[in-house]
C-alpha cells in the first residue's frame, strides 16, 4: 500500500479523431473510424502498409514559435493535449513552477522525421550546412517531456520513459509512483507519437502490420477478429494530470478517477513476441498493487493491436485471471495503434467510461477469433456502471505495463 492516494484531475488528447478529449470520446461512442488511407509512401518498394490513423490538421500556431521550433509533430500534439489537461485540472502557473509538479511523458523514439532531415543532408549531400540548430532537440529521446517542461515552465522532475508501445501506460504508472511516494504532488503524464514510415515499415517487415486494401482503411484495424491482419499505425498524444488526493482536495479540484495500481515487467523470452505468462504476471502484480480482486474488475481496456500473436496471448492471460468475464475491448479498431500515446489515450477513454457508465466495444469486431473466444468481447455500446478498469499496454522489447483505475470515491 502506498502512503498517498493518487487521483486524476485533468485529461487532454490529440487523437486521430482530432484535437480534444471530446472529439475522441464522441468518435469512440459513435463507433466511428479515424483510420484513413496512408498519405504517402505507398510507392516504397516492400512497404505493405496501406492505412494509418493520422491526426487531422490542428492549430499548432498557438504554441509560441520560440518553443515550437524545437518540437516535432508529436511534441506539438503533446503540448495541445497538456494544455487541455492542465486547463481542465485548473492548475495555476505557480504550481507549474513550484518544483512540486513534474512530467512523465514518453514516446517510442525521437522524431524520425527530424532524423531523416539530418541524415538526408549528411549522407546524400555530405554536408551539414542546411541543418537547423533545433534538429537535435526533436531527435533526442526525451524530446516530448523536455519540450513540455520548457514551454510550460515546469521546474520539477522530468522523466521520459521509452518503452515503445507501452511508453504512455508506463509513464502514467511512474507518475503515479512519484506522487504516491511523495516525490511530487502533481504529475503531468502520458505519451505521444507521430506516424513515421520507420515504425510502420518495421511492423510490416515483421508481418505484423495490416496490409488491407486502401479502399477500405476504416475496416483495416480489427483486434480480436478472425479476419484481422495486423497493426494499423497511428499517432497522437494523451496527457493526464495526476495528483495526490490531499493536494486535489485542498485546492477543490474535480476528481474524475483514481489510479489504484500499477505494474510493469519484462518478458525476456522474445524481443518481438508477446508472452501470455508474462502478461498474466503483470496483470496480477497490478491487481495486487491495487488490492483489487479480479471479480471486482468491470472492464479491461485491452492492448490488442490486431496481431494474431498479441491478441491471443492477451486474451489467454485475461481468461486465466478473470473467471467473472468482465467486458473487454480494444479501441485500436477505431483509431489504429497510436503507439506511445495509446496507453494514455486509452486510459483517458477508460476514465470516461467510468464517468459516463458506458463500455465502448471493439470496432470492426464481427467474427471473434475462436482462440480469443474465452473472454467477453462486446460488439455494441453497453450502458452499465463501471467502477474498476484494468488498462493493458504491451510493447516490443518484451515490456508489459498495466494500470488499475477506479472511480472517484
Amino acid at each position, binding site marked *: 500500500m502506498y502512503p498517498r492516494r493518487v487521483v486524476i484531475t485533468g485529461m487532454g488528447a490529440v487523437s486521430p479523431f482530432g484535437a480534444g478529449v471530446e472529439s475522441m470520446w464522441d468518435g469512440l461512442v459513435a463507433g466511428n473510424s479515424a483510420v484513413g488511407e496512408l498519405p504517402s509512401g505507398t510507392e516504397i518498394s516492400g512497404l505493405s502498409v496501406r492505412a494509418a490513423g493520422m491526426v487531422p490538421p490542428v492549430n499548432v500556431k498557438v504554441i509560441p*514559435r*520560440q518553443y515550437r*521550433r524545437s518540437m516535432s509533430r508529436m511534441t506539438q500534439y503533446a503540448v495541445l493535449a497538456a494544455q487541455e489537461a492542465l486547463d481542465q485540472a485548473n492548475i495555476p502557473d505557480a504550481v507549474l513552477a513550484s518544483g512540486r509538479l513534474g512530467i512523465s511523458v514518453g514516446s517510442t523514439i525521437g522524431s524520425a522525421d527530424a532524423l531523416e532531415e539530418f541524415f538526408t543532408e549528411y549522407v546524400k549531400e555530405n554536408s551539414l*550546412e*542546411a*541543418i*537547423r*540548430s*533545433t534538429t537535435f532537440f526533436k531527435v533526442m529521446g526525451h524530446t516530448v517531456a523536455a519540450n513540455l517542461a520548457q514551454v510550460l515552465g515546469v521546474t520539477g522532475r522530468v522523466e521520459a520513459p521509452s518503452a515503445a508501445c507501452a511508453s504512455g501506460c508506463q509513464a502514467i504508472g511512474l507518475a503515479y509512483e512519484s506522487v504516491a511516494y511523495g516525490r511530487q504532488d502533481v504529475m503531468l503524464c502520458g505519451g505521444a507519437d507521430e506516424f513515421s514510415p520507420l515504425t510502420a515499415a518495421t511492423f510490416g517487415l515483421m508481418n505484423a502490420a495490416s496490409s488491407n486494401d486502401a479502399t477500405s482503411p476504416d475496416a483495416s484495424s480489427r483486434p480480436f477478429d478472425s479476419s484481422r491482419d495486423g497493426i494499423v499505425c497511428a499517432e497522437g498524444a494523451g496527457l493526464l494530470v495526476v495528483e495526490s488526493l490531499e493536494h486535489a482536495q485542498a485546492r477543490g479540484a474535480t476528481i474524475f478517477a483514481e489510479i489504484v495500481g500499477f505494474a510493469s515487467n519484462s518478458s525476456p523470452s522474445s524481443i518481438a513476441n508477446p508472452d501470455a505468462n508474462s502478461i498474466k504476471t503483470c496483470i496480477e502484480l497490478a491487481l495486487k498493487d491495487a488490492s483489487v480482486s479480479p471479480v471486482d474488475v468491470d472492464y479491461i481496456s485491452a492492448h490488442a493491436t490486431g496481431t494474431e500473436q498479441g491478441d491471443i496471448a492477451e486474451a489467454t492471460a485475461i481468461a486465466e485471471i478473470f473467471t467473472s468475464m468482465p467486458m473487454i475491448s480494444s479501441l485500436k479498431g477505431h483509431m489504429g495503434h497510436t503507439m506511445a500515446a495509446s496507453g494514455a489515450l486509452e486510459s483517458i477513454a477508460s476514465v470516461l467510461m467510468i464517468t459516463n457508465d458506458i463500455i465502448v466495444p471493439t470496432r470492426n469486431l464481427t467474427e471473434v477469433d475462436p482462440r480469443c473466444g474465452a473472454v467477453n468481447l462486446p460488439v455494441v455500446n453497453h450502458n452499465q456502471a463501471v467502477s474498476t478498469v484494468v488498462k493493458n499496454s504491451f510493447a516490443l522489447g518484451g515490456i508489459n505495463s498495466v494500470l488499475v483505475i477506479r472511480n472517484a470515491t
Partner: protein
Amino acid sequence: MTEKEVIEIANVALAEEFELEMEQMVPEARFNDDLGLDSLDAVDMVVVLEQAFGFKLRDNQALREIRTLDDLHKYILRKKSELEG
C-alpha cells in the same frame, strides 16, 4: 539583383522563417530586442539566407557583430559584391 531586391529577399525569407510581420522588418530593428531572435535563430538565419541567395554567408566573426537588420543587409551586399568582384 539590385540592393533593393537583396533587402526584399532577405526580409521576406526571415519574416517567413521566424513568423515576423513585414512591418517589423525595418533597418534599425535589432534581432534580439526588437525581433525576439536568439542565438539558435542566428544559426538558422544563415541557413535560410544561404538557401534564399544561393551563396555562402558563413563568417563567424563578421556574423557575431551583426546587431540590426541594416547590419545584415550590408553584410549580404558585401558578400555578394566579393563574389561578383
